[in-house]
């Protein structure tokens, strides 16, 4: 209590406040629930302070002794202010509290001796802690009043011989203080004029072990008081420059940050140069230095070195010492530092608009990146140069991304150059990648990761105009690099390929039956578990490649060639399925959840931005996302949930509300005619031979799309399905899963059939043939081969099948028309009365009843599982209920009712192939 009664000198010392008294009285007065934030902070901060050793003992810490009451203090910062002044300032004042402290332990615990030993620092430390809170949380008037004295206290700390951690804290407080002081004009002026040069001088004079703190402090000064630092610009420059090539990354980074701020120092015209001019001059100097460093580092290894011809003069670096062994390392460190300075100059804020010499910067980047490992001789210090090359390339890529970030879409003119540069670097660092076994990180993955990051940034910045992956040799090269980095290692793939056979697919909904998988594993070379390696090797580069690719597809998808889209589908879809079935895991990058999420992101991008001539993999994606939703990794599952919401918007496009069209408009029913299969959905294959002869069947294959389809009525008139046995368990359900989403987009808004003609002509198998094509082994289609006819050939007819009456019905087989096919011929009238045939015309005839599931529930239940499933699924409109036919037109479900499965849990491979080839047509184009 002696302590608290000590009179504290205030800046307005006339008031002569007794801090302690105030504190205590405040404590006494205010015991309310609300406490001052500042004090809460102090308490929290000192929570870790040495506690009382014995449970019964009161805490001895003076601050702590105040603190139990402190949270209830009203914001009366004057009281803390006193404490701070008292303890934070060094020298004479400090001796006071120290002696005051000495009296404290009498009533407290045994920690005292320790405290007395370290008391000096701790007191200062506590002062700084309090000051940090005060600076942050004091109101403006108070801050304005005391800022200068606080600044002086900090300066005293800086001039003292305190240990580096205290300095660090002091500088942290200083930074905050300067940040707020710069916002108040009078304070700003005062500090600029009177205090800043002194402060900088003391920072410059800090001991070498406090170098980091010194740089932090200078950076704060330069950031908030750039004008005032102008007078010391030269000194600062040489200080920073001597540390730009520091070996400690932290120190180097700070030195570079500070160096890059130099041009904005001083008044508008410092030494006859405007800020912008000095910025440009500095930039050119850095460019010149980089060129010359590069020349020295890779003398003779460059085929045709670009010479710098700009106005810049080399930055004066301290001449390297004789130690010949390290000269190359030193040069590399310099190159790194200067390149980083340049990048920081480009990417940090600058007050005035500047003119960025893009061509010159690109020149140095290209020169660096075109140094190839092949041209470096392996004699002498060649190997060392070779070893340093990847890091040099990394620096150049960092510079490139800074340039992209700074210039944004303006770089479009140089887009061709950039998209050539990226595959070039990938090519350069592609050595010896295939020889490694899985579980081992491939070489140069850092450089490759960086390249992909640059690619992503470039597409982020330029969007669809980035022009990446749009053909050309460089696009092809980039694509193949991307694909190779995305593909899981080879023997993991081997596991996947031999799975499944036609009947294997028939067996069960789980094509990856464990028995089968084991067998395959037995055939594999060596179980990955017996190998040394990282389980998630190459996951960084894989994730980066996926990110770059998905961003590119998302932004430029419609501009990317159809062929490329197909290749991506062929890689991504099996990969997703394989990952979900745990097959590609082993020691592939996809053990990392980050990679898996990026894979899903790529799938989503493929779905959202398809090529106009290659339908997106909607059904597969739906399946993949709903499986992915169940992953344990929250990162992945939450992404999949988000993606499913997006997919839901695709599959159920919103129809504009009726009301907005006004009562005056003779608006047709809002529900689109369910039968009109859009030409977009017209499958690129033909119905087998006898089919064309069926009556109302429109021309098969790609169809002209004018008007509603004539088949609309015929389809609706299909008779109700007789409920039958559950049907074949596995394969039968698969088609029902690939529910197309395209129900309400007017067909006229979709591009005409000519879009798909090309695609359908590509595969000769798709040409019409006399007999239904044989069933395709599921994995063959899904594993990346061309799309196959989607007809399923069943050997036996089943009661639940709707038989299509073919005039030349010589075959016993039943043709099941999969979803997506234009239409079905009217089935033979069955025993029950067919429902009234819907008119073939526009749906205006049918009232737009928003049919719910409930009304259908009862008859469905009576009719049996098949019908019920249909009824339950089709909540689209009354039309469907009335049709009650073989096929629910809205969801375009398959004929066989047993296809229904309670959930979309599982897709057989056949389904996948189907979906990947046709179901995908359902992408909504709006």
């Amino acid at each position: 209590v002696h302590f608290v009664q000590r009179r504290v000198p205030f800046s307005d010392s006339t008031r002569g406040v007794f801090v302690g008294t105030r504190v205590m009285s405040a404590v006494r007065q205010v015991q309310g629930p609300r406490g001052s934030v500042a004090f809460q902070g102090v308490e929290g901060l000192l929570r870790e302070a040495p506690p009382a050793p014995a449970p019964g003992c009161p805490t001895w810490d003076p601050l702590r002794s105040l603190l139990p009451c402190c949270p209830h203090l009203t914001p009366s910062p004057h009281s803390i202010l006193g404490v701070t002044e008292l303890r934070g300032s060094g020298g004479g004042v400090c001796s006071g509290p120290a002696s005051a402290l000495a009296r404290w332990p009498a009533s407290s615990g045994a920690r005292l001796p320790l405290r007395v030993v370290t008391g000096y620092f701790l007191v200062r430390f506590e002062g700084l802690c309090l000051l940090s809170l005060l600076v942050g949380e004091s109101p403006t008037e108070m801050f304005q009043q005391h800022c200068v004295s606080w600044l002086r206290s900090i300066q005293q700390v800086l001039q003292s011989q305190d240990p580096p951690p205290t300095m660090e804290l002091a500088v942290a407080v200083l930074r905050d203080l300067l940040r707020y002081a710069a916002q108040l004009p009078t304070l700003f002026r005062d500090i600029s004029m009177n205090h800043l040069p002194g402060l900088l001088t003391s920072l410059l004079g800090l001991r070498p072990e406090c170098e980091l703190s010194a740089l932090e402090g200078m950076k704060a000064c330069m950031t908030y008081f750039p004008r005032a630092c102008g007078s010391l610009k030269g000194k600062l420059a040489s200080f920073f420059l001597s540390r730009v090539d520091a070996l400690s990354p932290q120190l180097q980074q700070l030195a570079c940050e500070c160096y890059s701020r130099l041009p904005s120092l001083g008044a508008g015209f410092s030494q006859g140069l405007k800020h912008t001019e000095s910025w440009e001059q500095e930039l050119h100097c850095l460019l010149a230095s980089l060129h010359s460093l590069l020349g020295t580092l890779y003398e003779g290894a460059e085929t045709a070195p670009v010479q710098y011809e700009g106005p810049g003069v080399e930055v004066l670096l301290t001449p390297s010492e004789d130690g010949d062994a390290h000269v190359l390392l030193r040069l590399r460190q310099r190159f790194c530092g200067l390149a980083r300075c340049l990048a920081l100059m480009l990417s940090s804020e600058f007050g005035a608009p500047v003119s960025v010499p893009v061509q010159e910067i690109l020149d140095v980047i290209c020169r660096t990146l075109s140094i190839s490992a092949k041209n470096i001789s392996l004699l002498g210090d060649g190997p060392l140069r070779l070893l340093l090359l990847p890091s040099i390339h990394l620096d150049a890529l960092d510079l490139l991304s800074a340039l992209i970030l700074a210039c944004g879409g303006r770089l479009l003119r140089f887009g061709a150059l950039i998209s050539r540069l990226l595959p070039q670097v990938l090519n350069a660092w592609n050595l010896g990648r295939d020889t490694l076994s899985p579980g081992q990180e491939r070489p140069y993955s850092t450089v490759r990761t960086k390249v992909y990051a640059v690619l992503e940034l470039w597409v982020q910045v330029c969007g669809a105009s980035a022009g990446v992956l749009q053909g050309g040799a460089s696009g092809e090269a980039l694509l193949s690099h991307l694909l190779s980095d995305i593909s899981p290692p080879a023997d993991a793939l081997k596991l996947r390929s031999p799975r499944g056979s036609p009947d294997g697919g028939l067996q069960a909904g789980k094509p990856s039956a464990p028995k089968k998988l084991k067998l395959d594993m037995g055939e594999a070379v060596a179980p990955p578990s017996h190998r040394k390696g990282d389980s998630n090797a190459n996951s960084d580069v894989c994730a980066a490649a996926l990110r770059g690719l998905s961003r590119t597809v998302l932004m430029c998808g419609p501009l990317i060639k159809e062929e490329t889209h197909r290749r991506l589908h062929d890689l991504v879809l099996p990969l997703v399925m394989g990952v979900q079935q745990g097959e590609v895991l082993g020691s592939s990058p996809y053990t990392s959840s980050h990679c898996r999420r990026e894979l899903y992101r790529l799938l989503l991008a493929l779905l959202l931005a398809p090529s106009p001539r290659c339908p997106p993999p909607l059904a597969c994606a739906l399946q993949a996302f709903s499986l992915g939703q169940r992953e344990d990794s929250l990162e992945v599952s939450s992404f999949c949930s988000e993606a499913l919401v997006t997919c839901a918007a695709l599959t159920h496009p919103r129809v504009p509300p009726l009301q907005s069209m006004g009562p005056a408009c003779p608006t047709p029913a809002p529900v689109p005619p369910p039968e009109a299969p859009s030409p977009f959905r017209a499958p690129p294959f033909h119905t087998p031979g006898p089919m064309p002869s069926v009556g109302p069947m429109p021309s098969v294959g790609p169809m002209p799309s004018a008007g509603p389809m004539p088949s609309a009525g015929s389809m609706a008139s299909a008779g109700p399905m007789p409920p039958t046995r559950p049907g074949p368990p596995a394969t039968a359900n698969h088609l029902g899963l690939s529910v197309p989403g395209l129900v309400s987009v007017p067909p006229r808004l979709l591009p005409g059939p000519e879009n798909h003609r090309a695609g359908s002509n590509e595969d000769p198998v798709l040409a019409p043939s006399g007999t239904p094509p044989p069933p395709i082994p599921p994995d063959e289609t899904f594993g990346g081969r061309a799309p196959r006819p989607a007809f399923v050939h069943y050997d036996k007819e089943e009661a639940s099948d709707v038989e299509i009456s073919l005039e030349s019905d010589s075959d016993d087989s039943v043709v099941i028309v999969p979803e997506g096919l234009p239409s079905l011929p009217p089935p033979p009238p069955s025993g029950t009365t067919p429902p009234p045939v819907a008119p073939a015309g526009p749906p205006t005839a049918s009232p737009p009843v928003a049919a719910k599931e409930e009304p259908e529930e009862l008859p469905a239940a009576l009719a049996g599982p098949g019908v019920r499933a249909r009824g339950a699924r089709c909540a689209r409109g009354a039309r469907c209920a009335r049709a009650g036919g073989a096929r629910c037109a809205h969801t375009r479900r398959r004929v066989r009712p047993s296809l229904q499965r309670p959930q979309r849990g599982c897709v057989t491979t056949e389904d996948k192939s189907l979906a990947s080839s046709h179901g995908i047509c359902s992408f909504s184009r709006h």
Partner: protein
Amino acid sequence: MTYFRGVSGGKMAAPMEVAVCTDSAAQLWSCVVWELHSGANLLTYRGGQAGPRGLALLNGEYLLAAQLGKNYISAWELQRKDQLQQKIMCPGPVTCLTTSPNGLYVLAGIAENIYLWEVSTGNLLVILSRHYQDVSCLQFTGDSSHFLSGGKDCLVLVWSLCSVLQVDPSRTPSPRHVWSRHTLPITDLHCGFGGPLARVATSSLDQTVKLWEVSSGELLLSVLFDVGIMAVTMDLAEHHLFCGGSDGSIFQVDLCTWPGQREKSFQPEQDSGKVFRGHRNQVTCLSVSIDGSVLLSGSHDETVRLWDIQSKQCIRTVTLKGPVTNASIMLAPVSMLSSDFRPGLPLPHFNKHLLGAEHGDEPHRGGFTLRLGLHLQGSEPSHQQRAEQLHAVMSSTMEKVGAGGQAGDAPGPVLAATPAPWPLTPSLHRASWAARTSCGSGWPSWRTRCGTCARSTATCSTSPRASSPGRPSEPAPG
């Protein structure tokens, strides 16, 4: 630009939609801006007459107007209404003008050529001469990746900006799509949202409006009218197509109705509820408000009308002094409303000659004039981040200083009494910090939980081994 818009969001109470109109007489002013819903005249820009489809906003900072029949473009700084700031000289009379939404490029149709300037340097990057008659309308897609041009030669061309910019000088750049299904001159075009996935409506004197898709180049829809169509626009959601006829009627075509037809004709008598009647002469320009409820139309009958789309009623008629050449609805940029606004970048000198060509233009250095660090806006560390950083410094200081002190000459009993050298190991520090920050607001919430039990927290920290991160808020025993 987004930066400035962001600032405006804070200042203004609500986004303000304004109508920007020009007429070809321009007796008092060349361009007038009025508040859309109240009709209050906000400001005018003076000097010259803007030609049809010749008004464009550059970067939210400048207003550009192609002068009717003259070979220059006027540029006003948006906040300085009455002084004509700069004239951009062009090789010939500008027939249409547009700017890219990202503010980086200016496109002008001059006779049958399209000129493309880069705003950050002022360089004339390319001259496209693919049309063989005058270019009548130009527009960028919303993401600035493509632009479209329509001409009197009945062609609509879709250009990909990146291929236009990167073509080597020896080859002439070619458009991505050539749409040649119109049979008479193109009068207007409108590009919807979606960048490369956008849909484009084009109108022509051949009495049709056609809807196209940029990604595939397909014709999606063609609507035949009784009269030539002079202007076309869509609402943002692309539910309706509005077509201004040469007889003064405006037709509304619903895009989301059934049955869908690829070709259809619009019968005014049948679709009487879809015609806006009121203009007495041909409609020259159309624009829809952001919410899709109001349509603005300008006509050769010297009026600008505002329509309620739902009821087809005319809400307001503004009479100008001459045939209306431009009328569009836009969100008012900040610079338009605050006079103390300054453009972020000076308008460059626009070169008259192609970049790289050997002409007398002042050679520009290759540098792009730009503002640096805009991408860093808003990425300053937050309060909590700073607090955490400070806390880290404090903890490390405490640790080092404390440890140093103890290593010095701390008496034995003290050590015995406090087995742990210092309260928390770094990892515990972090954990406890995480526990604190996870409360949402950092320190205070911690404080409120343990305010009454400073002792207990103290006990916890004496024996770090016993205290798990989840337990520090245990109630005090006494």
